[in-house]
């Protein structure tokens, strides 16, 4: 991955020490204006990471691309800059480089990567000491961080395409409470421990917005009530046997209408039902013994780290959104890996009400170390990696000859490895070793799909049924979700086939039907 001279540096050698005064002046000037939320969102480049808002071209015009724009800088400069970037380049205001909450090792690794580690020019004592403390932090680790933090969404890179790894903001007005959003923008914390695409990283940085900016952006975002159509990777025809295919819709109770070309999404009104203490216990029992929610979400001290934690979601999310997201996640959160519940409306009402009524404050999550789940090499092909990241695998891969990378087409993964990585790898590991980043947070270790001896005892149909109906129906961990309403038949069969490649085995001979098997 060598830097390619594909554009003139927009950054150049900025005078580091002079920046502080300019930055302060720019901020003062901004506070005197009444910002326009839409314009501000565009200028800040929200659309570089988020779908549903104007795309991030504006920020890419001011953010130096990877390559010549960065390489001339000294690693030590980047090291300090990443810790506190606010003093740099006031002239691009209201755009700005936000602050990521990176630890010292991450800053060392990223510094070495973006400067291409040609030579350690201008190394100061602090950087030297940091490198000594983290000798293992290297260029490769920095590359992974660059990708997982979606740096390339603003700082275009020839090999690492921009990614819309952050949540779709197109339905913000349907989703969150304004008060919460203002607080979040004032001090972003991690919501999804391993990123919106599980294990793929991503981090909402702190733009250090002024109160006026927060008000403006919040006001604008709350007007957005249309999830991006076509983003759902699993918006496929339901397979036979799924509720949708048989005319019934699980969890119906006024199903939300997904956004279409002719109009925005609509969520039927819904309020939490009053729950007795017993009903609360019933919900807790379902969450503990039957439902898979805690496979991905943390509740209290228990649960996985794939999705947002569920404590205090009433503070963050609108009740009708919570209710209908459980039943129809792909309609409201296109691209989510969250499967649609197969349960009936009354139980979805119960669980949604429980989560909303449960007395717990909202908090963020701790960002998981060691992300992303994707290996730097091996395991998945470049096309699959691109696919898992949201790129169209059918398109030509980015090449040195390519012009400025364009915003990726937000289609879901379709090739088996990419599908596996998107849906399974968080727990089962990219290579099926049962070592996904979420595995330590599960009470039952995920199946090791690479275990040839064990997997050769399981039939293809059992694997399919487990994907469809979840772990509970197989007498295994109920925290393995049911993807029955979210993946179509072809996708389930593709996953089974991929698991067979991971274990390099076949199912038992008796499970291969006679005539069909020939």
């Amino acid at each position, binding site marked *: 991955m060598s830097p390619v001279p594909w554009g003139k540096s927009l950054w150049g050698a900025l005078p580091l020490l002079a920046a502080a005064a300019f930055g302060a002046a720019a901020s003062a000037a901004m506070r005197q204006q009444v910002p326009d939320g839409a314009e501000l969102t565009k200028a800040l480049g929200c659309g570089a990471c988020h779908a549903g808002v104007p795309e991030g071209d504006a920020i890419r015009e001011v953010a130096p691309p990877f390559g010549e724009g960065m390489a001339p800088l000294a690693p030590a400069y980047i090291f300090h800059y990443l810790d506190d970037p606010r003093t740099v380049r006031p002239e691009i205001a209201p755009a700005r480089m936000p602050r990521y909450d990176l630890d010292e090792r991450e800053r060392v690794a990223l510094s070495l990567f973006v400067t291409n580690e040609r030579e350690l020019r201008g190394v100061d004592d602090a950087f030297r000491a940091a490198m000594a403390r983290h000798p293992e932090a290297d260029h490769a680790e920095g590359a992974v961080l660059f990708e997982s933090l979606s740096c390339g969404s603003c700082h275009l890179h020839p090999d690492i395409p921009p990614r819309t790894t952050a949540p779709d903001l197109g339905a913000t007005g349907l989703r969150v409470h304004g008060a919460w959003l203002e607080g979040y923008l004032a001090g972003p914390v991690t919501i999804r421990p391993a990123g919106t695409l599980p294990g793929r990283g991503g981090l909402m940085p702190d733009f250090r917005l002024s109160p006026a900016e927060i008000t403006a952006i919040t006001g604008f975002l709350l007007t957005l009530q249309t999830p991006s159509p076509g983003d759902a990777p699993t918006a496929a025809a339901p397979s036979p*046997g799924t509720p949708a295919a048989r005319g019934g819709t699980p969890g119906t109770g006024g199903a939300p209408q997904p956004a279409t070309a002719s109009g925005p999404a609509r969520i039927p009104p819904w309020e939490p039902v009053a729950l007795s203490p*017993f009903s609360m216990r019933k919900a807790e029992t379902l969450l503990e013994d039957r439902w898979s929610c805690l496979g991905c979400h943390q509740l209290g001290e228990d649960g996985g780290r794939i999705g947002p934690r569920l404590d205090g979601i009433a503070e963050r999310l609108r009740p009708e959104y919570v209710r209908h997201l459980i039943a129809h996640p792909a309609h409201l959160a296109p691209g989510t890996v969250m499967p649609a519940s197969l349960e009936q409306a009354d139980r979805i009402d119960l669980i949604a009400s429980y989560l909303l009524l449960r007395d717990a404050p909202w908090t963020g999550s701790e960002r998981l170390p060691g992300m992303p789940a994707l290996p730097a090499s091996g395991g998945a092909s470049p096309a699959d990696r691109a696919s898992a990241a949201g790129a169209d695998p059918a398109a030509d891969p980015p090449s040195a000859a390519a012009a400025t990378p364009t915003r990726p087409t937000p289609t879901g993964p379709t090739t088996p490895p990419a599908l596996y990585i998107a849906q399974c790898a968080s727990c089962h590991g990219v290579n099926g070793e049962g070592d996904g980043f979420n595995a330590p947070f599960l009470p039952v270790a995920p199946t090791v799909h690479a275990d040839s001896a064990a997997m050769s005892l399981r039939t293809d149909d059992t694997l399919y049924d487990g994907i469809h109906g979840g772990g509970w129906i197989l007498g295994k961990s109920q925290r393995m979700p049911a993807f*029955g309403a979210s993946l179509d038949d072809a996708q389930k069969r593709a996953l089974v086939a991929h698991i067979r490649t991971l274990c390099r085995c076949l199912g038992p001979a008796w499970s291969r039907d006679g005539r069909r098997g020939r």
Partner: protein
Amino acid sequence: MSELHDVKFSLLFLLPLAVCLACGDSAAGRGAESEAPPISADDFVGSAACAGCHAEQYGRWAESTHGRAGGEPGPETVIAPFDGTPIVFRDGTVLPVVDSAGRYLFVVRQEGRPERAMTVDGVIGGGHMLGGGTQGFVTRLADGTARFLPFDYSRHLDAWFCNTATRADRGWQPVTPDLALGDCGDWPPVRILGTMSRFANCQSCHGSQITATFEPGAGVDTRWTSLDINCESCHGPARRHVELMTSPASFIAAADPSGPAAPPDPAESADPADIGLDSRVLDGVDKSLGVCFRCHSLGDVIREDYLSGAPLADYYALLLPALGDEPHLADGRVATFAYQGSHLSSSCYVDGSMTCVSCHEPHGLGYWDVNRAPLASETDDRQCTSCHASKAADPEAHTFHPAGSPGARCVSCHMPYLQHPVIGDDVPFARSDHTIPVPRPQLDGRLGLVSACRGCHTDQSELRLQARVDEWWGVTKPQDPVTAGLLNVTDGMGRDLAARLLLRPGEGGDMDQARGLARYLMGWVRLGEGLGRDGAERIAVLAESEDPDLRAMAMVARHVAAPARGAASAADGRAGPDAGAVAAAARSESAQVRRRWVMLLGFLADEARARQDWGAATELLNRALAIAAEDPGVLLTMGLVRNGAGDPEGAIDAFTRSLAADPDQPVARVNLGIVRAAAGDDEGAAREYEAAIALNPFETMAYVNLGNLHLRGGNTAQAIRFYEQAVAVGPEVGAAHRNLAVALGRAGRFDDAIPHARRAVEFAPGDAAARDVLRQLEAQAGGGAAR
């Protein structure tokens, strides 16, 4: 004649033993097993109390087969024709009628006997079941029992039938002019509502909260809430729930702040989520199954008078029926008569999480899928494909039958209706196979079953059907290891090999393990002979099972095989703990396991007694006493064994100790009296019989044996009076009729004697002495007439 019969009578009247080991009126039957609070009949409120708050569930239940399972006789409950159309037997006619007062009656007319009208006090069943729905009737007798009448009705046949088990032994037979009333096992009525182990075929599931409790000095106190299957049958006692929910302090009241404030209610719980009821929604898989299997499974009675809500394992052992009667085939399917407990052998349970309510909606008893989406019927494939989605994507690729055809339905091949073998083929009583097997036409035929394939393709041989199965599906899914072992094991096989075949801890479900262990225990475990290497290793693992049935069976295998206390080693030379050491280990076992342990040793002792192996029986009972010292049931059995062994002193000692442990045992009194009488102590014997009658005025055997004393003493008139009392309280007891016939014959009243002799033969067809009495009486009467 009289001398010979006098001796025989005494021996014949020794009562069976295994029955008593499970008796609730023994001391061992008392005391709570678990820490759960005791439940009494007063804790139940009846379904009507639920209707107000749970109207939707109540409405569905009321229309369900549970809600319409029986009740008081009336137009709503009775489906059988009570229109006076006679039910014609070979030796009598029965008229089902409704009298002017609205009472439902069976009027029994038999030549030479007075007409007898039997009131229907309860209706059992509504003929709802798809594979053969029936309806039965109970009547209350003077002894306090409610007994089943022999006149059952089949909705599918639109005909009356009776159960000939214990008599003609031809299963269930439609009533025809070729069938005698006495061919019916329930004529005169024997089976009772409720669970009392001395009465055969106890029935406690054909109604709600049925209890039959022996009341010393009075008889039997039979109670029930209703004869449908009510809300509390599954949910447990609801009185506290009603009190809590209607308490001013309840969360229901709290939801209405406008309501009046009230002081805390004494029923209020410290736990705000406590609803005063054991909610089913919180059940895990096995607890959920236990709610249904309390009735829908075979089970050995551990304690009597179970009331819903009590811990099931304290009262029933669901896996122990595998020992003895072998009600299931090698693969768990029904071999005799069983219910849906065979589900425990299904892969859906063993390898999955399937419970009854995975398919059966529990209130209306309709059908739904695993995600509770309603389904139209019991044949809807989504019962299966909501889990087995892989089969739904391309059904014909799996079924090889045209989509929509009966052969393409999941249940057609995997849950065929099987007629329960012990019933015979004359009255439909088929139940869906809940082992959910893979069709194996050849094996099915070998096991005597009609395979699912042959159920439709009646023109094809099993061989041909098997060939088609092989062609379509290739290699058939292997049986679980225990089933495979049971199919391959043979009598006389070496002990180690049998152990390897039958004992497969960790492979398959507990019910499979129980079948294998039961077969091993009965076939290869010998008293004091050790287990051998393979057996010992595998039994040791099974003895660590969490299931109390399996654990107890394994413990008993180890205990039986252990050398006697102080013996150098087992017969196979392998060192191991002696019986005393094994028994000492019981102290660390739960009460549930210990109770099963003792019961199993008693069962094995009974088997030995049947073989007249008195030494083995005595040793097994002594080992049981090492677990449960002075257990009245074990001692009662010991008395029978010692008497059989020609040791009256030992028998008297055992019966006396049994009565010391539990004085309220009329049966033990009778047996003690019999042994005293045999030893020449007529006075002592009479005291015991009278004591038995004081305990139970309906104790038939006490009257019979008092009659025997007087007959032997030459007081025929007094003997006749006691025998007449005996047939009055126990009209179904053939021996009472026989002895009355003997006494009447001695008195020269041949015309009075012969009907009783005939009834003796009728009610005890295996009693050679009764036939002899009848023959002699008829000869005497014929001679008299000739004179």
